[in-house]
């Protein structure tokens, strides 16, 4: 008698979890749509010819590099050509074991320079600072290996500008990316951080260090990730941003107010998801001090990054991301339902905790439960199929919503074939890919729970990038 009731209760609980999660995603989608429409309502004016006013705040671009010998020269050359009035580029070589430093020295004719800096944040020792007479805005910092967060902290110590922009050394920014991402800082003095959109570089053509033609990757894994990235950025970030509740600014491209970050303690060295952890901690720090602040997201400045094209690299990346998320939320759990915490403490944090942090666990438990019940005849085969079909339809729906947002706003992928292919991907990714990434997220969760040691990780670079 009790058995069927328990079963039914579990059934409804699982259904409730799936439906509630998707309803929240739908609500975020709606907010994102409204925010995107608003942000696009002055695109014609933005596109008018502009002269740099000289009033733009100076920016230090920080590019931590670890074993990036294949792409570092191209990436730095591209960074040196951005359209902006006052900026410096600081590349932090975090004790690379390959020829990263030598490549930089040869390419940019670097020599050691005496440099002075205020060690506001503790870091591993700096071995040398290099400069180039040909590129006065460029400095290379060679330091002992301490991880990405440590490298970024060293970069913050050496930066001399009020804002710093962290970029991955294997990423390519749009030429006017800095001009666009700085806009929230100009519009609202309370802004302490701002994120931009990351898109997949695989399949695009590059010329002179910038994207010349946008295309879709030929590799199916990278192709699926183009849809995933649209979902994550167009409504993941854009949906939370108007509520000032964004918990992630990608480490590949984000702009921060230097002093605020220093006051919050800089990047946390012990975590692998230093980018998310910093943003969550900034929220916690500023809310606890009752200081007015804004963490913004601008969808147009685009940073192009290389997506993993093999399962092994993708697995490592997803495990790392999940661990980072777990560490960020667990380390800042005081933010949950914090008094006067607003949308970030009462909406975004609980949502992330239930559907992103514990999500893989619930997903795994739910699917395993249904499978076991179906296997032993507690639940009919039809019920299991119905639930799976509903999950599938909701998954496709979220991806298609992201495609719609993309079409209504940026429509960056120019050909009709691209749209059709992405729709096909939005369906296909639900058959195996999503389950696989969920499994890796579960592995990441377990690794975090067990406290397994994490590191930078490395991956082979694509030939196209090396050939640039």
């Amino acid at each position, binding site marked *: 008698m009790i058995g069927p009731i328990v079963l039914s209760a579990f059934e409804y609980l699982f259904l409730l979890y799936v439906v509630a999660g998707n309803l929240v995603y739908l609500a975020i989608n709606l907010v994102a749509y409204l925010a995107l429409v608003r942000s*696009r309502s002055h695109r014609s004016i933005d596109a008018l010819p502009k002269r740099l006013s000289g009033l733009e705040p100076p920016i230090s671009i920080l590019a931590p590099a670890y074993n990036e010998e294949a792409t570092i020269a191209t990436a730095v050359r591209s960074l040196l050509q951005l359209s902006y009035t006052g900026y410096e580029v600081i590349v932090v070589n975090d004790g690379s074991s390959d020829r990263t430093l030598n490549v930089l020295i040869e390419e940019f004719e670097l020599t050691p*320079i005496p440099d002075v800096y205020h060690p506001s944040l503790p870091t591993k020792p700096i071995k040398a600072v290099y400069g180039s007479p040909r590129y006065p805005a460029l400095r290379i910092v060679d330091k002992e290996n301490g991880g990405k967060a440590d490298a970024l902290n060293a970069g913050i110590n050496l930066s001399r500008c009020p804002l710093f922009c962290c970029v991955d050394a294997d990423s390519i920014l749009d030429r006017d990316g800095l001009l666009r991402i700085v806009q929230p800082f100009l519009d609202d003095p309370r802004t302490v951080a701002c994120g931009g959109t990351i898109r997949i570089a695989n399949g695009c053509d590059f010329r002179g260090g910038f994207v010349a033609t946008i295309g879709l990757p030929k590799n199916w894994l990278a192709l699926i990730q183009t849809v995933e990235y649209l979902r994550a950025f167009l409504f993941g970030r854009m949906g939370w941003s108007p509520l000032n509740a964004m918990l992630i600014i990608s480490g590949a491209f984000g702009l921060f107010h230097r002093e605020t970050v220093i006051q919050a303690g800089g990047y946390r060295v012990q975590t692998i998801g230093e980018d998310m952890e910093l943003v969550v901690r900034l929220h916690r720090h500023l809310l606890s001090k009752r200081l007015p602040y804004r963490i913004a997201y601008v969808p147009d400045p685009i940073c192009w990054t290389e997506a993993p094209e093999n399962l092994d690299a993708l697995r490592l990346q997803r495990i790392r991301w999940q661990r980072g998320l777990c560490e960020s939320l667990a380390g800042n759990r005081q933010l949950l339902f914090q008094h006067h915490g607003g949308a970030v403490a009462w909406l975004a944090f609980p949502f992330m905790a239930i559907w992103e942090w514990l999500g893989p666990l619930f997903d795994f438990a739910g699917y395993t439960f249904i499978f076991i019940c179906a296997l032993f005849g507690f639940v009919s085969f039809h*019920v299991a199929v119905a639930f799976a079909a509903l999950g599938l339809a909701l998954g*496709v729906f979220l991806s298609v919503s992201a495609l719609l947002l993309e079409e209504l706003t940026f429509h960056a992928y120019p050909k009709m074939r691209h749209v059709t292919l992405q729709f096909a991907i939005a369906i296909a990714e639900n058959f195996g890919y999503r389950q696989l990434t969920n499994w890796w997220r579960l592995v990441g969760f377990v690794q975090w729970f067990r406290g397994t040691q994490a590191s930078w990780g490395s991956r082979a670079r694509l030939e196209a990038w090396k050939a640039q």
Partner: protein
Amino acid sequence: MSLYVVWIATYSISCFCIITFSFILTLRTARTVGAAKKRAFISQWRPVLTQCLTTYPEALPLLKRHERRLFLHLWVTFQESVTGEAHARLKRLARELDLHKIALTYTRPHRGDLALLAVTALGHLQESHAWETLAQLLSHSNRTLSLAAARALVRIDTVRGLSLVLPFLATRQDWSVLNTSLVLKEIGQSISAPLLAQQALSRSSDVAARLITLIKAIRGLSALPLVRKLIERHPNDVTIVCAALDLFSECHDPRDLPQIRHYTLHSNWIIRLHAAMALGKMGTLDDEIRLMALLSDSEWWVRYRAAESLSGLPVMTRRRLAELAEAVPDKSNADLIAHFVHHADFYHRNARCPSLA
């Protein structure tokens, strides 16, 4: 029953996905067709507008109704790109095509992007009939639209426009300094700067500091006497003093040097920092001793900026800097100067690192 609901939900969501995809395809098709039409329009009208840069065209093509928006965008783009007499010819062309009347019909805020273009065009056309409409837009919650309206108003009638816009410069914190400075540059610093300073005298310190920053953005030399008065009234207000020191260093008036020198001794390190930076831009060789004293400051950034300012003093030589570095008892402070000695040698003074703004 629950199974039935699950299947209904699944079918509904699937249908919705297919409808959404069809909508995406329709949008894309419409965009492709629109892009072809735009190309045709541009190929017809761009040569006409380009000709306007040198001579007025003898005959104009017919502007079709569906091309109005495209024309508005193209015309505004040209107006924003050119200077001099070409402006007048472009205005004549626009009036001949009734662009001023067309633009007036597009100014409602719900038109978003189109309203912005229309407001900008009305400003360029100095369309006095749009005055009331534009004045109402000044208080609109959309900051881009309200700023565009402000810019249009001062273009149409500088004096009247300024009297309308001025109160908003103080109250609209959402108007960025950069974009507001564009409006003020339209007016000219000699007119706008004293009025801004006058406003600053009667406002709270945050607003006053913002107004001083605006004066700095337009290099408002004519506002300096009033700003000096303001700083006399609030000698210890950090936001006002820092903003004023930045303005002084931008304007390079030697009469402000005593005030700047005085602030190198202030108890607040942020004020000392700004004073050190200002001395770097307009100090004389007499200030060497003050900057050397700041090298012993308790705050690293004050020491750093003092060393940078020392290296930037007029007639400062590499040899003198090296001598100063040797004379400094503290090694870390000597390193600060040595850093700038090397910096000057290394980069041949072609480029200085961006200063802390």
